[in-house]
């Protein structure tokens, strides 16, 4: 056993995903406290070439699990072999589908404790403690692994739990995972890929999100939201009701079964604020809601609640911001 902090570094389109940079920074911070090293386990197309660059993000060492895309759960045996007998203190995984599946398989294969999805992690008296928003955000729980549980403790981190480091750090030393048989976990394969015609915004990285719900009424109703998003350099998101209706692609859905977002500004238009939506946006720094129902639940947790018709207010707001920014309309 050692005091290292391992993290999963997912590569996406040839470069480290945002989650890899966040977890590298998180692992570096925790490793500084635990007296160990931040060790990345990289996978996805481009991982081999890009592994060393994770040094600047906080990693001391990086082990390449795979250099191709595919279901990450097939890498569970390789990850287990990498951990080997000299188990690190903690293992950070992104709370993405791939990250969760790989972490889950590792938990099952090695009988490891797992915490998460968490929103904060710290080390207290040499033990890892994780803070979690549970029961649909109604309580905060702090958890740890049992003193006699095996190491490492797996920690699923939501996007935005850690902030990427800005520059600094040299290249990480890079090695390749010992070859291992994926077994049945490698048997699920992608047999068809159907990318959408148009690119879809990555809401997890947006600083400003203008979200529309059932109140927007139609696909065309999203046009004023698009314009407001444009003047704020933001992205458009949606409730499930709007995605279910086919007004926007499902990739824009925010909530329990959609994206968990953490923008500096979230503006909800015609969204009631159901608990399943709320769990996807409650960590936004500033929440504005525009709703014609003065009793809408979103009015209970928004920072600014504007009662009124979104179709009247949103275009006025876009025009007002244009005026203040000096953007010609």
């Amino acid at each position, binding site marked *: 056993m050692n005091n290292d902090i391992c993290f999963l570094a997912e590569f996406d389109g040839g470069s480290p995903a945002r989650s890899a940079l966040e977890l590298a920074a998180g692992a570096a911070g925790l490793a500084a406290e635990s007296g160990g090293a931040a060790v990345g386990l990289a996978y996805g197309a481009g991982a081999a070439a890009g592994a060393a660059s994770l040094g600047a993000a906080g990693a001391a060492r990086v082990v390449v699990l795979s250099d191709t895309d595919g279901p990450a759960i097939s890498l569970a045996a390789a990850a287990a072999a990498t951990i080997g007998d000299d188990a690190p203190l903690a293992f950070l995984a992104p709370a993405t589908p791939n990250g969760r599946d790989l972490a889950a398989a590792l938990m099952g294969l090695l009988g490891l404790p797992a915490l998460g999805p968490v929103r904060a992690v710290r080390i207290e008296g040499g033990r890892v403690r994780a803070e979690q928003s549970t029961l649909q955000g109604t309580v905060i729980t702090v958890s*740890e692994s049992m003193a006699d549980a095996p190491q490492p403790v797996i920690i699923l981190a939501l996007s935005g739990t850690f902030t990427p480091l800005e520059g600094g750090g040299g290249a990480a030393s890079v090695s390749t995972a010992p070859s291992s048989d994926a077994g049945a976990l490698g048997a699920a394969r992608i047999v068809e890929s159907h990318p959408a015609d148009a690119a879809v915004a990555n809401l997890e990285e947006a600083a400003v999100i203008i979200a529309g719900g059932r109140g927007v009424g139609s696909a065309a109703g999203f046009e004023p939201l698009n314009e407001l998003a444009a003047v704020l350099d933001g992205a458009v998101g949606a409730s499930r009701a709007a995605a279910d209706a086919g007004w926007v692609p499902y990739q824009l859905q925010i909530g329990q079964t959609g994206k968990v977002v953490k923008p500096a500004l979230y503006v909800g238009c015609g969204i009631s604020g159901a608990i399943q939506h709320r769990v996807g946006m409650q960590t936004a720094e500033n929440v504005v809601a525009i709703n014609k129902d003065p009793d809408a639940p979103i009015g209970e947790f928004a920072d600014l609640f504007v009662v009124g018709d979104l179709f009247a207010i949103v275009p006025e707001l876009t025009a007002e911001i244009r005026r203040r920014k000096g953007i010609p309309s």
Partner: protein
Amino acid sequence: MKIVVCVKQVPATTAEKRYTADLRLDRAASESVINPLDEYAIEQALRLQEAGAVETVVYLSMGPESAAEALRRALAMGGEEAYQVTDDALAGADQWATARVLAAALGKLAPDVALMGMSSDDARGSLVPGAVAAIRGLPLLSYAAELMLTGSTARIRRLTASGFDVLEAPLPVVASVTDQVGEPRYASLKGIMAARRKSLETWNLADLGLSAHDVHGAALTRVVEVRPPETKAPTERVENLGPAEAASRIADWLAARKLI
């Protein structure tokens, strides 16, 4: 072809939650429902059965005795029979222990597909499906927007960052579904009556060949603190203003926070 749908009883999202002295959720004090995403798994299984791709739909739940209610509700939606794993030694089970126990029960039931909701309302770790697959040594098809079964293979449609993928694995598999598989049906009165006559068998740990030691006293993790979320500043309300005025107030508010 047999599907076992794993069903968890959870506190209703509207119910008031209470904690016991040892920081476990007091499940007896909260109104309980079938985990909503598990209802989607049930719906997917029943649709496959109606389409003739599946003969038998079986339910499996681990939980306190009172969780039998969730299984009766599932049986009222459809399906043939149910199994409940309940044992005092499992109180406060964490995700690992849950996966270990479900994997053992699934070993006895030997379905072609073990189907689950992608996450539970009260934990949201989404770790149980992958862990069960790893323990059982089976392929995992997770986050399915649709499950399809043909011959000896299972296929799913899964949303990606911009579109969707189709994944395939040889049966038997473990699979999890999202809320895109189709809205869960309501139990009919006839279904509720029929459910009373369907078989619901109860197992304890020993029936699964497990001891309390095998599940590490039900958990590898523990909660050390429970507290309410941080209280935020009260909501500022803007009401009874014309659109231009309201817009100007919002712009002032954004400017004060350096958001424009």
